[in-house]
């Protein structure tokens, strides 16, 4: 019972912060609303027996990624984000579509044919001994470094490629400017 109450409060905060992000006219405020949302999701992970993911969510998402967002917003000086759009008909159509999406998702997920038990899962202490440590960082690490070793290495390569890509994309301009300056120097 108390779990449901905590869930309801957190869900309300999560949805309110998402709506706050969507309706905010200040990009910095929108980013901070998103941080609140990410923290709520991290707390949900804790409730779902995923403490490792909860900590990764806080450090990677609410930490690194949102700092990057805030950094770019402040670098570009693009804090003002007006709500009005040239396509006035788009907002009401979108809201209708979003309600339809939620209704369809609920219909599909709760139809008996999908065969997923969506009730409260059995208590961990009552299930087989092997699953007693389900979701502990140790268990996640064991699976990650044995069964998912190849994807893990590939993700490392992907991060390297992304890093090089970001450096190349932002460096190009600088090189051109430096080239132009060199030409000016030689012309003088």
């Amino acid at each position, binding site marked *: 019972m108390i779990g449901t109450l905590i869930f309801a409060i957190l869900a309300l905060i999560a949805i309110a912060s998402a709506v706050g992000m969507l309706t905010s006219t200040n990009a910095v405020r929108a980013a901070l609303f*998103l941080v609140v949302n990410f923290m709520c999701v991290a707390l949900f992970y804790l409730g779902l027996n995923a403490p490792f993911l909860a900590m990764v969510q806080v450090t990677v998402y609410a930490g690194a990624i949102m700092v990057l967002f805030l950094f770019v917003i402040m670098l570009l000086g693009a804090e003002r984000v007006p709500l009005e759009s040239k396509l006035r008909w788009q907002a009401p159509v979108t809201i209708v579509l979003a309600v339809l999406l939620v209704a369809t998702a609920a219909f599909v997920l709760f139809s008996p044919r999908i065969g997923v038990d969506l009730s409260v899962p059995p208590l961990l202490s009552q299930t087989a001994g092997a699953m007693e440590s389900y979701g502990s960082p140790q268990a996640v690490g064991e699976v990650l470094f044995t069964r*998912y070793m190849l994807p893990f290495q590939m993700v490392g390569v992907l991060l390297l490629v992304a890093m090089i890509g970001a450096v190349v994309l932002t460096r190009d301009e600088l090189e051109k400017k430096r080239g132009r300056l060199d030409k000016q120097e030689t012309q003088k």
Partner: protein
Amino acid sequence: MNETAFLVPTSYYVILSAVLFALGMVGVLVRRNAILVFMSVELMLNSANLAFVAFARAFQDLGGQVFVFFVMTVAAAEVAVGLALIVAIFRTKRSIDIDELREMEG
């Protein structure tokens, strides 16, 4: 107080995930600022992650949690490249309003 009092049915998490996903979709379709569209995409990724973790618990399978870990790393890579692109576009166009970016039109 026993442990069962803190357990919440998987269906609650799934419905919350669907609602957050729909909100992210509204953001992508309604907002015209590239950074806000990007943030809405992050919101949608997060809601999908929440559904993954909820189902991982329902099936007692750690594969779902590992997949969320991979989604997070890919999202980090995507954000790094995407924000670099936004900075590059802003340098040439002086604007990140996606309605004004029409060069790529076929």
